[in-house]
């Protein structure tokens, strides 16, 4: 035993020296600083005070970096020994092959943990510097992250013994990242597939390493509180078992299956896309395919960022996850507050009044993995951002309109949050002005401007009237110029502006 401890200590030191002398950690640190420092100085639309987006981005980076470090550390345990032929003197030393494997694994995990600890120290320091505080969930989140790193090292160590370095790194990364972001949605995904593929996806769901169990980022960012002790232990137990020599090969097999399944899924749909149909009319019109693709990507990113802000509004809960893929807004019903034209239906007041309306658990079916996810990744209570706290959403809107300045939804939603939730007239007007700067004479934005000026009849009525009139004119101009007369946005904006103008006239008459 003493012998083994000495051997392990030696192997830990080896991994340590290698990791810290490779300068990977410092390169990542520089990259992280290069991203975080400008981000932390951002004041979206001139509004200061948002901090959750910083926590979120920093945690995302810490997770990404830790995965990079862990996969590298696992990959570098054996293949380089074979390349440099140092494996022979090593195996000729009085250490058994089993112990060498275990000792090297421990060494790599310890080294990767040291890097992770370093990143967390910086993370905590940055939060404290911003005047933030941490609740009970931080130690738990860190422990689960450490467990994840141990799992990732095991995955890449195993892969390194079976396939080439690049194949192993990309495969391990795809599986772990894929599971991290989409693992819990696999059962729903399977439902829409043909039986054979569905079976494959379900098999992957059953055995692939569930990286998502360890993800407490949203709990940290949105302050959901600690995970139940039993669930926490179950996740640790899962990490322990998932990297055991008996189970790990099965999981790797599942990894290969997953890759095959993804390929099988991706190819037919890609073919369908390529064959055209609705997807390509712009190309036919003579625009460059690249521009179309790029434009599409910008729009998609922009919409995803609005969705992100929406998630923030719901205290970190992704309310859309029960209709994956089909973002059918008709299903939204009452809980939806988004854009101006929906606020028409009585959502003008405090957004906070439908607390508890959504059920946080609706995303999950009832298998054991779902049970874990439900407890780790869904909060016990559903709280909405309200009042000044709503500034937390602003960075996401800001990013959204940077991605696509013509995403009117993003502008109007940002305006709505500033105007109604934060009750910050100056901010609301600034959002609208910037929006109009990029989208001159947009009727919707003009209506938004009018409403802020109008301020329920207590504001600058003259300015409001001017904005509403401009909205009506703009809508008419668009229709005259051949705009779609069934375009809901224009119709709505026009109707809304007219209604406000009526109200203003009546008030003036009654005086």
């Amino acid at each position, binding site marked *: 035993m003493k012998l083994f401890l*000495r*051997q392990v200590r*030696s192997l830990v030191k*080896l991994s340590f020296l*290698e990791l810290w002398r490779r300068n990977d950690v410092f390169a990542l640190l520089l990259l992280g600083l290069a991203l975080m420092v400008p981000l932390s100085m951002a004041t979206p639309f001139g509004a200061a005070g948002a901090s959750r987006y910083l926590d979120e981005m920093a945690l995302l980076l810490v997770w990404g970096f830790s995965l990079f470090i862990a996969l590298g550390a696992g990959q570098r345990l054996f293949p380089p020994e074979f390349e*440099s*032929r140092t494996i*022979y003197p090593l195996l000729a030393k009085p250490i058994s092959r089993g112990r060498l494997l275990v000792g090297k694994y421990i060494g790599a995990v310890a080294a990767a943990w040291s890097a992770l600890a370093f990143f967390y120290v910086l993370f905590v320091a940055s939060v404290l510097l911003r005047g933030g505080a941490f609740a009970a969930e931080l130690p738990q989140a860190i422990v689960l992250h450490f467990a994840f790193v141990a799992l990732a090292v095991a995955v890449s160590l195993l892969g390194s013994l079976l396939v080439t370095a690049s194949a192993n790194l990309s495969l391990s990364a795809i599986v772990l990242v894929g599971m991290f972001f989409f693992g819990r949605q696999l059962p729903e995904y399977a439902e829409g597939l043909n039986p054979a593929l569905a079976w494959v996806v379900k098999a992957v769901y059953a055995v692939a390493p569930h990286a998502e169990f360890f993800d407490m980022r949203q709990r940290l960012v949105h302050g959901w509180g600690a995970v139940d002790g039993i669930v926490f232990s179950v996740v640790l137990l899962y990490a322990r078992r998932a990297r055991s020599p008996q189970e790990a090969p099965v999981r790797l097999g599942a990894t290969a299956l997953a890759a095959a399944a993804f390929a099988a899924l991706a190819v037919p749909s890609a073919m369908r896309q390529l064959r055209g149909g609705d997807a390509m009319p712009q190309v036919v019109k003579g625009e460059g395919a690249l521009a179309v693709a790029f434009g599409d990507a910008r729009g998609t990113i922009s919409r995803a960022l609005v969705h992100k802000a929406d998630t923030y509004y719901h205290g970190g809960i992704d309310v859309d996850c029960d209709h994956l893929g089909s973002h059918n807004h008709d299903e939204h019903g009452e809980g939806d507050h988004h854009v101006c034209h929906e606020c028409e239906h009585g959502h003008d007041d405090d957004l906070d009044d439908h607390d508890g309306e959504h059920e946080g658990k609706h995303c999950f079916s009832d298998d054991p993995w779902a049970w874990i996810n439900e407890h780790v990744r869904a909060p016990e209570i559903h709280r909405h951002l309200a009042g000044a706290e709503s500034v937390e959403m602003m960075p996401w809107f800001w990013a959204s309109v940077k991605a696509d300045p013509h995403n009117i939804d993003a502008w109007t939603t940002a305006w709505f949050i500033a105007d109604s939730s934060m009750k910050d007239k100056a901010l609301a007007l600034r959002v609208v002005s910037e929006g109009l700067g990029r989208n001159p004479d947009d009727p919707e934005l003009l209506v938004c401007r009018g409403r802020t000026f109008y301020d329920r009849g207590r504001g600058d009525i003259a300015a409001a009237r001017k904005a509403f009139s401009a909205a009506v004119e703009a809508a008419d101009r668009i229709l005259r110029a051949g705009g779609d007369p069934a375009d809901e946005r224009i119709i709505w904006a026009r109707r809304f502006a007219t209604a406000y103008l009526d109200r203003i006239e009546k008030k003036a008459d009654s005086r």
Partner: protein
Amino acid sequence: MKSGSAVDIDSVSRSFGSVKAVDGLSLALAPGEIVGFLGTNGAGKTTTIKMTLGLLAPTSGTVKVLGGDPSDPRVRSHIGYMPEVATYYPYLDARELLSFYGGICGLDAKTVRRRTDELLDAVGLADAAKRPLKTYSKGMLQRAGIAQALLNDPDLLVLDEPFTGLDPLARIHFRELLLDLKRRGKTVFFSSHELGETELLCDRVAIMKKGHCVYQGPVRDLAGDGAANLERLFLKTLEEAK
């Protein structure tokens, strides 16, 4: 097995697919002996050496080392091995390399430090001890390899082409070091293409050709008449084995 042999290779064969790297080799080393292992390229020397360390299993036959099975780590704790070519961990310095291997051998920190100092002096790396191995020349790496093989003060030293890359001074020094080990009762088994060095050092030589051992015995048996003695023996044996 012959009782008391340091190495006892008994009718050992090893194939790689259709290639018979070693074919029915029997060879025994008495404790305190220095035996040189000669042969053409691809004759099976490295394969044999790997089998004496348990790095490769024989296809048939048995290998006993120091009375035990070399695949047993306890047996290996009395063996020192220096491989043919190895690029040791480039990001370590020589001192760290030896301290790493010392830990793997299970030595305590104090012993590791003492042995490291001794060996760095012995192989002439004391001045370069703080430089990363990636800056080392070929011969310097070879010296580091010698040092790591001696770390656990082994009873049996197995060296695969130890003279390659060493400068003349280092060779003389290394020869002295091996003779000193012999005086202390250690057994040395080394492969080499350096006939001069081998002749000066060895009690016996074994000559391999295409997996077979074509000669085993003392260099001096064949009436010595000068420095080119082993060279003549070598060429003659290979010629006869055709």
